């Protein structure tokens, strides 16, 4: 099916915490490290601000992959936020997989403000992975049409 599609451009939503990952994303820009334009970043104060509702909403509205980036465990600007994130996302991603949504479409990564290169590499990898999976076909027909 996917073979027929000439060039599939997935929609990727990236939630980045303000203190580490958003700064890391800025750094990959400052260093001119490229990653695909499919990635659109939403800035949140902390990865723990990301409500499972946001991720479901993104899938519902047509996202093909959702990635969440936060400070490394132990480095959270708010001390403990990312630890809660890790538990929440562990359960949520597992649940989404349980419902039949490929695990590769969700990802949690720790990217520090110094890891511009890691940010770009992560995004390149994630976009490649989701592109390979193809359109989030599973949900396409069921999506809430606006």
């Amino acid at each position, binding site marked *: 099916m996917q073979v027929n599609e000439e060039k599939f451009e997935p*929609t990727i*939503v990236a939630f980045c915490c303000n203190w580490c990952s*958003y*700064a890391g*994303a*800025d*750094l*990959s*820009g*400052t260093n*001119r*490290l*490229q*990653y695909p*334009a499919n990635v*659109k*970043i*939403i*800035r*949140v*104060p*902390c990865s*723990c*601000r*990301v*409500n*499972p*509702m*946001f991720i479901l*909403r*993104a899938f519902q*509205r*047509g*996202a093909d992959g959702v990635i969440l980036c936060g400070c490394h465990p*132990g*480095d*959270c*600007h*708010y*001390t*403990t*936020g990312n630890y*809660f994130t890790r538990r*929440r996302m562990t359960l949520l991603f597992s649940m989404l997989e349980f419902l039949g949504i490929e695990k590769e479409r969700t990802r949690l990564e720790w990217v520090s403000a110094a890891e511009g290169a890691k940010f*770009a590499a992560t995004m390149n990898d994630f976009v490649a992975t989701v592109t390979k999976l193809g359109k989030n076909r599973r949900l396409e027909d069921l999506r809430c049409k*606006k």
Partner: protein
Amino acid sequence: MQRIGVFVCWCGSNIAATVDVKAVAEALGKEPGVVYFEDYQYMCSEEGQTKLQNAIRDYKLTGAVVCSCSPRMHEATFRKAAAKAGVNSFMVEIANIREQCSWIHKNKEEATEKAIILGRAAIAKVHLNAPLTAGESPVTKRALVIGGGIAGIQTALDIADAGFEVDIVEKKPTIGGKMSQIDKTFPTLDCAACILTPKMVEVAQNEKIRIFSYSEVDKVQGFVGNFSVSIRRKARFVDEVKCTGCGLCTEKCPQKKVPNEFNLGLDQRRAIYIPFAQAVPKVATIDPDYCTMLKTGKCGVCSKICTAGAIDYKQKDSFIEEKYGAIVVATGFNPIELNKYDEFAYSQSPDVITSLEFERITNAAGPTGGTLLRPSDGEHPKKIVFVQCVGSREDGSGCGKTYCSKICCMYTAKHAMLTREKYPDTEVYVFYIDVRTPGKSFDEFYRRAVEEYGVHYIKGMVGKVIPQGKKLMVRASDLIDRKQLLIDADLVVLAAAIEPDKSARPLATMLTASMDTNDFFTEAHPKLRPVESPTAGIFLSGCCQGPKDIPETVSQASACAAKVIGLLCRDKLTGNPCVAHSDELMCNGCSTCEKVCPYGAITYQDKEFRMPDRTMRTRRVASVNPAVCQGCGACTVACPSGAMDLHGFSNSQIMAEVDAICK
């Protein structure tokens, strides 16, 4: 409906070369609610800001979207400009089309399309923005300094000099810290006591400063400007007010076999003791682990001879509750334990010692009266080997530290130089991996040790120390001469790595201040805010933040004091308005949010509510203290009913962004 203006910045060619800025402005101009759009070369310039302000006035804008560089660069600039033109700061959003668009994409078409989408997301958010104003809270004009070493002393003195009250909490019976144990200080070689003890006296005499010695912080509550702290005053079994510090008891106490921690166990003290002659406060303390009276109820010698009647065997720990506006952490360092480094035979020979023990042995007030004598037999050592980097710069898999302890190169040079000066017939070897002497007059100091005093600096590491008879056979490599050496030394001195005091970790938990993996406190910013903790109102002084020598510690201590004074000078604090808030009508009062809040910002109260049927009902609801909340949002996700939301990053705002991106 908002009236939104869109401003697309070229950033010279930084954005304009990759993104078709005109197309972006035009596309965004078609979005609902957008009544004005413009593109300009440098939005952040004076001229650019004026454009924003004029548009606000001319088009009666209620909000604005600036498509430009990262909000981390100029969000504050544009928000300030908008506020001057009469639009609330928080009605301005930035679409990051430089760092996260033009700089990472090459294809102009792609980049332009993405810039438009990012702009749309920002517009969608502004539609749901509401003006925010920051809350205010008062400031208690008193500071707490935890730790009474040179860092704590300097910080306290500077704060007190500015006219604010300061309390010092010190867990030992006296202030003074590590510096009081040191003999001479590099690079000038003036005696540590000569420069430290006047400062200790100054602290004692300063009316603004209270010293709680032999005390520990027990509990910390509150937030910047409004901390309330419970301090445990450990029972010292001596009335501090009555004790004159005459020291008679410390001479007459029959229990003489107590290892003297001030001299690192190199000699012994009594069960009742004053750590050293210049102690502040100069008050005796009974060591409950060794006092015969406290252990068996039989003795009482000190009580009998004390003319001031200061001895009180029944004394119990007491607590002091006090309010503070700022807290300074100055908990200092310790050399690491060397029991895992027995290739150097530290636990096998009394003549293998740490550098701090060497300080005591050469200190005129130390166990040998300042004469350099070996601990084993009291003889003059004729050959001394110094080993650098013991436990520092390790790969972290073992018991060592990954970092450089920073002070060892200089104090070892000092020890080597002083030894050669006082005892020219003593041969001194220093084994080093690198000699690190960045600091004013530091390298000159080290070169003097080599050139004027003839200290043998050998590039290489000691592999094994073998006690044999009265000698210590030191096997080491000389990497420059490509030789393995075997030196028959009389004394081996190990430059042990330094680590943060063990009390720091539990303290950090109490303060909700963050630490790195080595238990050093982290700074709010490693370069630009080096003396503040990321937790507002917590400041860092001295080695609790990282290894430091005395000059550096004192500078940091004064810098820290300046920051504290800056805080205490203010009457009110303005908070971050992007904080959590609870919709009381929806709140279940279930306490889930409270459990995930790292700042203790959420409390519960029973409130009366008028029900639809006009009856009154009392419900338990959450309320957020906006001065304490830092706006992480952990609570908003924990809340099942969605009653808890975050100003500036609300559920609906973020979902509007999601929708705009996924459209």
